[in-house]
């Protein structure tokens, strides 16, 4: 059985040390390499990363959405450092001013700098959106994978998810906030509960497809443990739909957080969040429309950017459904 050679491999552990760069260099150097059948494979393999890069950059949705998101993230990160006034700094004598050299976007009814409030509010909104996207994806992933693999878990977990999904998102979030109390961390918890079932559903349905593939049966035939099959083999095949779903949840939870704060059930004042600023501006919409326009525009732009990014990622990962969705719903 034992064959002689090859006991001194460069890659002692196949699972670990094998990277793309170590391979495909067998082709001869120089211009003649393309003609050799052995090296054409090598060329393809080397350009794989460039291929992905090209597909990303040629995708208009990803580029537009990505640029918007990057700009907003940069503004949120560095903006508050540049602006001298704090979001809670009161200048009563300057209240309800329009944009001027002193206050770039004007002031609110307490004379607080609107630009500073919107930028600090962006931190809260983006933090909530990001935290909810990560948490609900992780938890939803676990629920979705187990319910796809175990039939008994499916019956229980999916009925619970159905129960949560039966409530309108906002209503459920308000109810949870009423129970938990108004705090930024509680907003994250409430929205995670609201959005987790959506990830679980998506992960489950993709995992069910993967489960039917023969390699899962092959692993079971080898006697692999359920957790090895689920997490080391099935899970990596479900990553792309989960990432796509996560971006949409990111956008959704920013909107829902704003709605919660607008209704007074979200981030408690005086801390700025986009929903809070909208709430403050509600009664003053004719006195100072800037208080409504600026945070409103911020929400729209952010959500638009993230959704474009999500659409682009879906097209990239899964060209078929992307096209089908657009043909069936959007364009016509």
């Amino acid at each position, binding site marked *: 059985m034992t*064959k002689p050679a*090859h006991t001194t491999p460069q890659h*002692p552990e*196949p699972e670990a040390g094998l990277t793309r760069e170590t*391979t495909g260099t067998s082709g001869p150097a120089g211009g003649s390499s393309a003609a050799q059948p052995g090296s054409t494979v090598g060329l393809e393999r080397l350009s794989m990363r460039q291929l992905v890069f090209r597909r990303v950059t040629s995708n208009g949705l990803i580029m537009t959405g990505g640029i918007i998101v990057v700009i907003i993230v940069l503004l949120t990160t560095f903006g508050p450092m540049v602006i001298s006034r704090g979001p809670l700094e009161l200048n009563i004598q300057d209240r309800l001013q329009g944009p001027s050299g002193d206050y770039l976007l004007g002031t609110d009814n307490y004379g607080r700098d609107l630009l500073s409030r919107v930028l600090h509010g962006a931190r809260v909104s983006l933090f909530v959106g990001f935290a909810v996207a990560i948490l609900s994806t992780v938890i939803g992933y676990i629920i979705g994978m187990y319910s796809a693999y175990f039939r008994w878990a499916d019956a229980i977990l999916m009925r619970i998810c159905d129960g949560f999904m039966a409530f309108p998102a906002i209503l459920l979030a308000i109810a949870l906030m009423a129970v938990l109390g108004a705090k930024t961390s509680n907003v994250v918890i409430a929205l995670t509960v609201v959005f987790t079932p959506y990830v679980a559903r998506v992960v489950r349905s993709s995992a069910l497809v993967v489960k039917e593939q*023969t390699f899962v049966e092959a692993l079971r*035939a*080898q006697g*692999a443990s359920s957790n*090895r099959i689920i997490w080391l083999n099935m899970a990596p095949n479900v990553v792309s739909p989960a990432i796509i779903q996560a971006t949409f949840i990111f956008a959704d939870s920013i909107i829902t957080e704003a709605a919660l704060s607008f209704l007074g059930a979200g981030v408690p004042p005086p801390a700025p969040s986009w929903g809070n600023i909208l709430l403050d501006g509600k009664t003053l919409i004719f006195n100072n429309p800037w208080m409504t326009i600026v945070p409103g525009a911020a929400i729209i732009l952010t959500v638009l950017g993230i959704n474009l990014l999500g659409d682009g990622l879906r097209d990239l990962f899964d060209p078929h459904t992307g096209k089908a969705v657009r043909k069936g719903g959007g364009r016509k």
Partner: protein
Amino acid sequence: MTENAPVLEARELTKTFTLRNAIGFKTSEVHAVDGVSFSIQPGETYGLVGESGCGKSTTGRMLQALIEPTSGDIVFHGQPISEFSRAEQQSYRSKVQMIFQDPNSSLNPRKRIGSILNETLVIQGIRDKAERRKRIVSAIEEVGFGEEHLVRYPHEFSGGQRQRIGIARALVTHPEVILCDEAVSALDVSIQAQILNLLNRIQEEHGLSYLFISHDLSVVRYVADRIGVMCKGKLVEEAPVDELFAHPKDEYTKKLLDSIPHAHPRAAAAAATASGATAGEGGTR
């Protein structure tokens, strides 16, 4: 090992699937496999043939311990596998390997070939990395690839190549029996021959036994030493390959043999009428 001690035996294997309606009431039963017995000798290829839905794949899945038989026993070296301890079960799984029908989905698309083969050995509890590496390399070379192919992904291979990787995955645990469930039926004819020849060569080198499950009689005839014919969950006839093709006893076997397409249909028909032969002889070509 004595000549007549079978490696793997099926004794009165029966599998009944119970169909239930939405509320959970039993509506009907399907006897997928019904009292099937056969044995596989060391170094032998046993062909299991039958039309689709006759229970041959279910038999294979029971032998691989993927599903439990409703009744009956699978006997490995004289010991029923239902009595195996956990450790013995694991060693059974390494000694009885499987090759699957669909080469496209039998390899995890997200894993490199080396990692797929490695995982098989990790599952079998082989801790020593150098030992794993040695086995992986020897298995991949056995099926005609080299070490450089271990870093590739399944999508970089064609169907026939992937099937060879599937064979390497089965070989890597040093099995005694390989169950080939329609192992070549998803491939085109020229590749089929390649894979069958590879299987034959590996059998000669390692003295492996095969259970070859197929609906394709010409394929089974090419590789098998003995053939069992299944029909509606029952084993209706069992005979050495030449005898079965020359003198089929069961009505169903005759029908099955008749269904093989001829390379020269007119010549075959002429030969049949000239000798006034029975229906069964048409199948011998």
